[in-house]
């Protein structure tokens, strides 16, 4: 046996990893059905598939979190049993998880240090860890504050902590399960530089994403899964976005959309000089003003952590404002309770859908009635009308094409995209006057994304005023009539989509005042 090559991080290189005939069953789901997968040193191998195709499941078996029912995992020709993440770590495997694996009440440095030996015996060596984090942050362009508590960080920053955790451990094989879902385009570019460098150093990388342009941009090979089965493995240079999409979904998708622009009606949602505090008690919104007309989509672009969730929450009545006014159709909504806001016809697709938008243990139908419980069709004199609820839920599940075994299935057994459709079904079916959609397609596969976009457009055409909050500029450009940019809690400017370029919006997102918007007004 030959001596293993050593990587710059000090870990021995993994030249080739193979997963053969992996079968994994869950109650009711065959998540992996004889899946084959391999990755080599110096390679970035993409793993693609719709929501629920079995990507994360496959990777969790590699990382020792799940154990395959059948099949084997072979490292450099040697079959290995991986009982736990500890085994995986010892073999040189690292993983960035799709759902953050961070301890909220600990600091960044503490999260990074967790589970690592300390140079100071039983005592922690957080100052060393802090120093090393700063170095890594410097090298890879990941700005995070090592002393901050995780709960203080935005999702984007938390994603960076996950990346730092993986880099810090210097794994020879790194699994990246949707690492870019919440990063801005610039951050993604920087991140890819890092990953490319790692691959060139001899690391093996597995990359999962729903964003095909990312896959096209920097991976070497692509494996596509559908319904837990291999569809095929291709070299990236031999394929294109459309072919990949077709492999995933089983039908062609159209990425370019054409819809008629309609004339803006009356201002439906009016926000004037709105200010509010964040959870930490610091100003998160500063004199924010804008209008959304009936039949219009206003896209709100911005890097995460600039006040977007706070804005949505204030409008939804979930967070008090410190000053300013919110009007809907000339009715003052400032200071209303969430219930009053709901009654005024405001629909809200929250960003943290698992935390805020859904009750995971509740069934699909229970989640569908969540915001309209007192409506006559659902209840009378506090007694639920089970018949109507079932009928209506079945209707919604059908119209919105939610893939679920039944309306009584708990939401937690649904795939991410389908859970998102439940929220959408609930909010849109309320015929809202105003729709606040925060990150509506985050983590959702391309088929579902297409579907959600179509619904938002459809809604727009019925006269709903939509505020679309998204960090995904593609989405903003695809759907918006006008685009507003938020930075540090302030609106940097509002531009018509046809006047906007990726570059001008990007600059505003970085905090630069665009001179032309002032004059254009």
């Amino acid at each position, binding site marked *: 046996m030959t001596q293993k090559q050593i990587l710059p991080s000090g870990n021995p290189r993994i030249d080739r990893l193979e997963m053969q005939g992996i079968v994994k069953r869950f109650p009711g789901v065959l998540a992996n059905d004889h899946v084959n997968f391999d990755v080599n040193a110096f390679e970035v191998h993409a793993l693609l598939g719709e929501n629920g195709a079995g990507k994360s499941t496959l990777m969790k078996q590699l990382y020792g979190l799940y154990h395959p029912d059948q099949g084997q995992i072979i490292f450099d020709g040697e079959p290995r049993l991986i009982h736990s993440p500890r085994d*995986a770590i010892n073999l040189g495997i690292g993983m960035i998880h799709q759902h953050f694996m961070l*301890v909220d*009440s600990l600091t960044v440095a503490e999260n990074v240090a967790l589970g690592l030996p300390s140079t100071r015996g039983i005592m922690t060596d957080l100052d060393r860890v802090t120093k090393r984090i700063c170095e890594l942050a410097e090298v890879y362009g990941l700005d995070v504050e090592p002393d901050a508590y995780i709960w203080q960080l935005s999702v984007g920053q938390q994603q960076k902590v996950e990346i730092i955790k993986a880099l810090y451990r210097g794994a020879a094989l790194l699994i990246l399960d949707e690492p870019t879902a919440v990063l801005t385009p610039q951050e993604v570019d920087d991140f890819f530089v890092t990953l490319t460098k790692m691959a060139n150093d001899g690391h093996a990388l597995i990359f999962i994403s729903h964003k095909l342009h990312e896959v096209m941009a920097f991976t070497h090979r692509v494996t596509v899964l559908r319904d837990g089965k291999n569809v095929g493995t291709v070299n990236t240079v031999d394929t294109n976005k459309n072919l990949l999409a077709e492999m995933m979904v089983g039908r062609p998708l159209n990425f370019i959309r054409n819809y008629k622009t309609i004339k803006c009606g009356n201002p439906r949602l009016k926000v004037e000089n709105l200010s509010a505090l964040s959870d930490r008690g610091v100003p998160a919104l500063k004199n924010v003003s804008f209008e959304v007309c009936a039949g219009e989509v206003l896209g709100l672009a911005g890097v995460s952590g600039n006040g977007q969730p706070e804005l949505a929450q204030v409008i939804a009545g979930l967070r008090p404002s410190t000053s300013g006014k919110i009007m809907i159709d000339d009715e003052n909504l400032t200071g209303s309770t969430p219930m009053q806001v709901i009654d005024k016809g405001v629909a809200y697709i929250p960003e943290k859908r698992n935390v805020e938008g859904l009750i995971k243990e509740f069934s699909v139908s229970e989640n569908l009635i969540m915001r309209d419980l007192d409506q006559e069709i659902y209840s009378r004199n506090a007694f639920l009308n089970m018949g109507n609820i079932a009928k209506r839920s079945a209707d919604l599940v059908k119209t919105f094409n939610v893939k679920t075994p039944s309306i009584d299935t708990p939401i937690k057994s649904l795939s991410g995209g389908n859970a998102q459709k439940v929220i959408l079904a609930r909010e849109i079916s309320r015929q809202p006057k105003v729709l606040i959609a925060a990150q509506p397609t985050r983590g959702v596969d391309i088929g579902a994304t297409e579907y959600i976009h179509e619904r938002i457009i459809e809604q727009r055409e019925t006269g709903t005023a939509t505020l679309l909050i998204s960090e995904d500029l593609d989405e903003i450009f695809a759907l918006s009539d006008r685009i507003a940019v938020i930075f540090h809690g302030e609106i940097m400017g509002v531009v018509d989509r046809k006047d906007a370029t990726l570059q001008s919006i990007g600059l505003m997102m970085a905090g630069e005042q665009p001179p032309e918007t002032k004059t254009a007004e």
Partner: protein
Amino acid sequence: MEDLFTGSVLIGLLASAIRLATPYLYAAIGETFGQRSGVLNLGVDGIMLMGAFSAFYVVFKTGDLVGGVLLAALVGLLMGLLMAFISVTLSAEQGISGIGVYLFGLGMSDLLFQKLINNVQTVSGFPVAPIPLLSEIPVLGPILFRQNVLVYGAYILVPIAWFVLNKTTLGLKIKAVGENPEAADTLGVSVSRIRYFTVSLGGMLSGIAGASLSIALLNVFQFNLTNGLGFIAIALVYFGGWRPTWVLLGSLIFSFVNALQIWVQVVGLPIPSDIAVMTPYILTIVVLVISAQRVRPPSALSKAYERLE
């Protein structure tokens, strides 16, 4: 009445509070470790009783005080291991398992007592061990440094616990496992090993808490000697927001008010005894309202961790 708050009375009350707080501290610090790692052990009181009996038995038969503490610690450790096995390995609902362990300890300690000793007896427990020099300090000396060894031990435990939780890699793992076991698991931290450790440690300290009653403070054993003290200790963990220093403060406040209520009765203030007895409990609630801590419990508290395979 006017002598109610003279210096010497106050010193007496404080000394009482310090002494009374001892079993609470051992049990509550032990429970803090368990809860910080996500395990709610409601069996503390039962474990204390088993510890109290074991220690008493050794001292009654041999007079060996250290041996008594060691056996109490060992028995506590075993009961802790049992609780860990049920709640970690078998992933049982922690609240009920704890009640089961409590009932078992309550019955078993009395059964052993009736079979092995039979009659209420006293033993010579740990003598007061004044610390040279320090005990001569006016005011503080008699309060703090004229106690027995197990009392000192309880107070030394507080900074140690603080150190372990806040300054060591082990503490980091414990906190992580209690907040987000999944995250800890993915970093190769064995959730069950940590929980076994903290729960057994908690059991061991509860055993010593029992010993502090039976061979240091009361020097007797009787059916249900603890009289629910272990449950108050759990309450103090919540009161202390899972931090040793605050647990200490809570134990002292509760004990002080209890000592005060006895004093008030002894000096004959015209208050019905029932009202006097309920005062510490009312005051504890008032203190809770005033301090209104915004600390939330460890997120994974009382949740079994299983990889959802």
